[in-house]
């Protein structure tokens, strides 16, 4: 290991090295191109990654090419990947093991040192992006003189900001200087924050990241021919988005300013990496490359060693790995096939279910309501949604016909006889839900799954009057059903493994992530939200101003304040959620009469014609006045943190879910809790709330940054 990167040698110990293979390719006029293939020797399911040993080998190979170029042996150097994969960037498992800030800094410096050699070869350098390219896999081409891209590349992105990092191997400085500040903002900040959106090959080409694009059938041959033309001087490269003087003097700072405001508006100022990236992009306007790269070294070292990156990696692994192998799920083999679905109800929720089931399972879906008119209206609404998907180009006309034919309505529950799965979506009333299940049970087989979407009733109670309660399972969606990725699968004491397995497999087939919970009030997401909202309303009820309450949760970096969330779910629903939790756990959850009154008012914030908040409404302030013991934001923040730590600790003690990881997964997927908090438990550990609440931490060792 080269002296200056000595601290990285431990990280390289069991690295899956992506090798740099060189082969000479003949060009026209007797010239030669040294073609480097990045290949870790595994198939496309284990993409090329870039660890310390990989980068050192890459640097050594580039040094050799530089010598050959000086000797006149080669006239260009090109880099490409293995089939389907260029490179997926730094090996994240390695990055998260970095023991201290200095090692993190060396990792940044090593990347700059190795990739930077692409611009110091003495002959033109090319990167042929033949497949997936992420993070460092994008920075390799950015460091080269020229780039081509395969039009079938499925993913090309700088996802660092999504993970609490910044593009620190040249990306933050090179990209805006190649494609302009606005495009760079989109790639470096905007896309990662849009649920880690990635570019496809043609989009990367359109942005000007690649100089040429070729189809997959002859990508490498065409790229080599194109490089031949560039080296020969017959192909001239024009970069339409390269920033000019006007952009640098006028547009650049304006764009940064706008992005800064939009960021603050959307995610607040708690998350560090978007702002660190923004600062780097801003500075790239008039710094030289060396200065830009040094700034990246420092920013990357800060991020890698920080709390938020560790929490983000934890959260990323939950979403990528744990979500795909849900804790406590029975053997998939036990699952029964679902070949026909019944939906009880034809209202808004029922329609969303029917649409999702028919789209994802592509089996007959029959809906039912009390009378023909309501049923017909439901079917018509679902058909209209299917037509909309067709108009948007997301369904072919054949598939549109197919799906519409699969959705039918009935008022005769005998039509549910051959359903394998029946889900109810009627109003939240125990007797009503018990009655519809009992009615349906007369017609269906003994093994048909009965699923309920209840959020506030006991699933066990709903099935209490059935001959076969072992087939009942909770299947709790989040609104909007088509978008939200989480389903809480609720297991009662009677639910058998076949039913649970079927529910888990069905959730997966619906392309949702399922977490198994016990049949306890609020399951996971609503219980946590009820805790936060209850504390928030309690503070208001006892005299704390709305604005101070909003301040108290700002350090969490949540997507919205408690009152924005209440308005989003509906104040009536919110009040009901608080009531049910208070009823279940009166000593720990607050109800709020004021919230019922606010619900009657219908809003908390005054809004302009575009729906933008103008601040808390005087009418709302009037309703809640009279409290006499206001808290400071700091006091309330501690109270909420400690309350959450205590409640989650209790939930784990009671076995509501298998582990703290499942709580975090639910909050990330079901409530939009940010990666930088790691869901919630890593945050509570690092904020000291866990110690205060139960004298220990959820994670051992706690998930936090290094020095």
């Amino acid at each position, binding site marked *: 290991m080269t002296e200056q990167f000595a601290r990285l040698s431990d990280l390289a110990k069991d690295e899956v090295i992506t090798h740099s*293979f060189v*082969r000479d390719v*003949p060009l026209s006029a007797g010239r030669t191109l040294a073609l480097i293939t990045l*290949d870790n020797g595994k198939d496309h399911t284990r993409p090329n990654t870039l660890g310390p040993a990989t980068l050192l080998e890459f640097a050594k190979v580039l040094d050799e090419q530089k010598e050959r170029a000086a000797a006149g042996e080669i006239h260009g150097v090109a880099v490409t990947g293995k089939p389907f994969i260029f490179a997926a960037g730094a090996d994240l498992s390695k990055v998260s093991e970095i023991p201290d800030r200095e090692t993190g800094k060396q990792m940044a410096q090593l990347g700059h040192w190795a990739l930077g050699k692409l611009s110091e070869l003495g002959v033109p350098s090319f990167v042929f992006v033949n497949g997936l390219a992420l993070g460092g896999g994008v920075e390799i081409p950015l460091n080269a003189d020229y780039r081509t891209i395969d039009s079938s590349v499925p993913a090309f992105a700088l996802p660092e900001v999504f993970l609490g990092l910044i593009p620190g191997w040249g990306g933050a400085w090179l990209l805006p200087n190649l494609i302009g500040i606005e495009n760079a903002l989109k790639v470096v900040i905007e896309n990662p924050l849009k649920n880690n959106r990635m570019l496809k090959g043609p989009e990367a080409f359109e942005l000007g990241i690649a100089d040429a694009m070729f189809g997959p*059938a*002859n990508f490498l041959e065409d790229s080599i021919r194109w490089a031949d033309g560039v080296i020969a001087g017959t192909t001239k490269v024009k970069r339409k988005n390269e920033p000019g003087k006007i952009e640098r003097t006028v547009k650049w700072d304006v764009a940064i300013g706008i992005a800064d405001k939009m960021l603050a508006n959307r995610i607040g100022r708690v998350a560090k990496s978007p702002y660190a990236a923004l600062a780097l992009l801003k500075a790239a306007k008039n710094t030289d490359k060396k200065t830009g790269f040094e700034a990246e070294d420092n920013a990357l070292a800060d991020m890698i060693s920080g709390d938020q990156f560790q929490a983000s990696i934890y959260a990323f692994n939950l979403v990528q790995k744990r979500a795909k192998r849900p804790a406590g799920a029975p053997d998939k083999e036990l699952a029964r096939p679902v070949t026909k679905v019944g939906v009880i109800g034809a209202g808004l929720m029922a329609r969303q279910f029917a649409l999702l089931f028919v789209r994802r399972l592509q089996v007959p879906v029959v809906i039912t309501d009390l009378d023909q008119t309501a049923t017909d209206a439901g079917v018509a609404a679902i058909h209209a949604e299917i037509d909309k998907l067709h108009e948007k180009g997301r369904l072919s006309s054949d598939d549109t016909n197919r799906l519409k034919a699969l959705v039918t309505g009935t008022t005769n529950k005998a039509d549910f006889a051959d359903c394998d799965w029946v889900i109810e979506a009627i109003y939240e009333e125990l007797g009503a839900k018990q009655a519809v299940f009992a009615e349906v049970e007369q017609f269906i087989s003994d093994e048909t799954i009965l699923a309920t979407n209840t959020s506030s009733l006991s699933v066990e109670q709903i099935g209490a009057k059935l001959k076969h309660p072992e087939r009942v399972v909770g299947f709790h969606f989040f609104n909007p059903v088509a978008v939200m990725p989480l389903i809480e699968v609720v297991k009662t004491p009677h639910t058998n493994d076949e039913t649970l397995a079927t529910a888990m497999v069905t959730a997966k087939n619906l392309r949702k992530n399922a977490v198994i919970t016990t049949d306890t009030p609020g399951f996971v997401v609503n219980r946590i939200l009820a805790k936060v909202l209850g504390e928030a309303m309690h503070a208001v009820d006892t005299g704390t101003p709305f604005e101070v309450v909003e301040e108290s949760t700002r350090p969490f970096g949540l997507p919205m304040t408690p009152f924005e969330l209440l308005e989003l779910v509906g104040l009536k629903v919110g009040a009901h959620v608080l009531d049910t939790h208070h009823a279940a756990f009166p000593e720990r959850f607050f109800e709020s009469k004021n919230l019922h009154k606010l619900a009657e008012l219908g809003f908390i914030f005054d809004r302009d014609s575009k729906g933008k908040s103008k601040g808390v409404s005087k009418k709302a302030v009037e309703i809640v006045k009279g409290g006499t013991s206001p808290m400071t934001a700091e006091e309330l923040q501690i109270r909420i943190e400690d309350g959450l730590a205590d409640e989650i600790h209790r939930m784990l003690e009671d076995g509501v879910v298998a582990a703290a990881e499942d709580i975090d997964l639910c909050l990330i997927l079901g409530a939009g809790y940010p990666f930088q908090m790691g869901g919630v438990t890593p945050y509570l550990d690092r904020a000291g709330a866990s110690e205060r609440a139960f004298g220990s931490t959820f994670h051992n060792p706690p998930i936090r940054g290094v020095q």
Partner: protein
Amino acid sequence: MAKETEIVFVDGVRTPFGRAGEKGMFWNTRADDLVVKAMIGVLERNPQIPKDRFDEVAIAATTQTGDQGLTIGRSAAMLAGLPKSVPGYAIDRMCAGAMTAVTNVAGGIAFGAYDLAIAGGVEHMGHHPMGSGVDPNPRFLSEKLVDPEALNMGNTAEKLHDRFPQLTKERSDAFALRSQQRANAAYEANNIQPDLISVATKSEAGWGLATRDEGLRPETTLEGLAALKTPFRSHGRITAGNASGLNDGATASIIASGDAAREFGLKPKMRMVSFAYAGVEPEIMGIGPIPSTEKALRKAGLTINDIGLFELNEAFAVQVLSLLDHFGIDDEDPRVNQWGGAIAMGHPLASSGVRLMIQLAAQFEQHPEVQFGLTAMCVGLGQGGSVIWENPNYKGAK
């Protein structure tokens, strides 16, 4: 000889031919990708033809399974980016597959069914070794329909030596040496490269680029050839040196009616005069091109003396020599395989017919004094195929 419809060979290209097997350059390249690259190559060279105007894609492969299966003419058409409205099919006449693809679409054009077609072939003998997956009917043996040795091409070549004792191993080796020397000279003169499509090749040591045939052996000597083993018989005559190799490669050509060529401003490289196939005893399949050539000449109203250039597939040197002897042509005649042949370049079975045409077309351009040329080849199980072409560049005899 004048046909109702004029049929022209517009253009053709091929991949370099690789050596079959794990060490060959195309071991990690799919057969269908090879022929797709050839098709894209010939399409890109003729961009003035709207792709939806192709009426047929005929692609030959001897073994039509795996990466040579799935009706390769149709699947390759889609993979090459032709519109879905363009149909395609697969062809098999063993070694004469691509030649049959050309004559089949020519027949369709002559009948007025097509205006434009793509014809070519592919054989990845590394992925599909000769005879793999075959299940010969036991009646062949029980009824003595063919000599058991007829199913092994090397044995049929040995039998040719038996039948024609004047065709000695020395003559075969000398012919093979010339093939290597002429191929090398043709590469030196850049006669071959213009019609080769470079193919990216993947190996464990990274990507490379195939730009020339892998089996060329310019260093070949007579002494070296004489020392080679005779794998089919002890003290036999057929060696790896005087036979074509086992190869991977693909070819593609554009065949058109004269009218279509004029419509798109194409400059045809050859005009088809006649073609013929003929059967012979399978045990000596190598003489197949003799009766097929006689038949093609008869249909064209020509004699062998009218043929100014020959492109004969060198499955085995002895098999070419048998044809030359039959027609009284000298072993070293410069009109025959001027740029060498399959012994040097390789013979990926069903693709080779179009390679002969590509080379004849290029030679026509260099030889405006030649009016007619012949492409011919032998075929396993006792057949021969011959196509006679006219040179559009013909300016009258010197």
